[in-house]
């Protein structure tokens, strides 16, 4: 097994244990559990008390979890670049749409340009202006 890269919006790139085989990325189940909280059990894929039954015979190969089929089982979008050793898994559009449509401001933690991290909810009860900008 090698160290590949797992990318998501909340954490950015993180190392994950797995191998690649042609276009497939096969991940070590404990590495998947550590990074995503999803554990493969007889009941299916489980996250805390929630289990999603899996009927996909291609989900695992010799005990390793196929990244694309893992995302598919959860209905999540995925991009696998096996040659480059990178997998990115995202949230379903409905998950993202929900809070926006409901007018709920989601909390987040991001690195500061000056160093360290910052959690939005640390600001407490006050009116806030989020200004998204860029150098481009």
């Amino acid at each position, binding site marked *: 097994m090698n160290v590949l*890269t797992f*990318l*998501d*919006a*909340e954490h*950015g*790139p993180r190392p994950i244990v797995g191998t690649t085989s042609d276009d497939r990325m096969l991940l070590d189940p404990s590495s998947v559990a550590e990074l995503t909280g999803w554990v493969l059990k007889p009941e299916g894929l489980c996250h805390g008390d929630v289990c999603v039954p899996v009927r996909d015979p291609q989900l695992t190969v010799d005990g390793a979890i196929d990244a694309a089929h893992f995302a598919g089982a959860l209905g999540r*979008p*995925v*991009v696998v*670049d096996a*040659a*480059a050793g*990178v997998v*990115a*898994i*995202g*949230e*379903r*559009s409905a998950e*993202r*749409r929900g*809070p*926006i*449509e409901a*007018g*709920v*401001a*989601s*909390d*987040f933690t*991001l*690195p*500061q*340009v*000056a160093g360290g991290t*910052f959690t*939005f*909810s640390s*600001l407490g*009860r*006050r*009116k*806030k*202006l*989020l*200004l*998204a*900008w*860029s*150098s*481009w």
Partner: protein
Amino acid sequence: MSPLGLTFVGVAFDDSAAAAREWIDASDPRPTFPMLLDREHLLGELYGIYNVPTVIWIDEDDRIARSPLIAPGDDMFRDFTNVDSSVHHDQLRAWVATGALPPATEKVQVMLPTDDEQLARLERRVGAFLAREGNSDAAEPHFARAAELAPMDWTIRRGTMPLRGDDPFGEKFFAFMEEWTAAGLPGYGSADPDAPS
């Protein structure tokens, strides 16, 4: 604005702290509020941001008081987008003072995430990671795919230009602007009721 009880948080949709720092250092006055780096464009997903600069008003109850809209910080931007920043500033002052929100305007086209948009974001994220690692050849197909999936998303069409070696103020950008304008300016939301729609 801080003395009136309004807190700013700046979030740079940039690929490195250095890129953001260059602009922050050149700002006069320097921002004293938190300035964050969002390389993965997490806030793009959480708040439905498709272009920058964008402001989002959030109230004491963490409710989105006002949807994302383009709100220039100074009037240099006005010449480019024909939006008057003083309108936005007046509206902000009223909101802070009384909690009043400006009347809804039909000119705001709210873009909500679609499956294609989510996939586009992933493709951009993978491409950006590979490009930052110096693997431009591996990155390029991901950038191209992202652009196909979300052609009207500026954070993708323009946001990937620096990493692809394209000038965000050059020919490819203006070609994209024409395409976006021809499509009816999707996602364009202005504080100014008289701004072009």
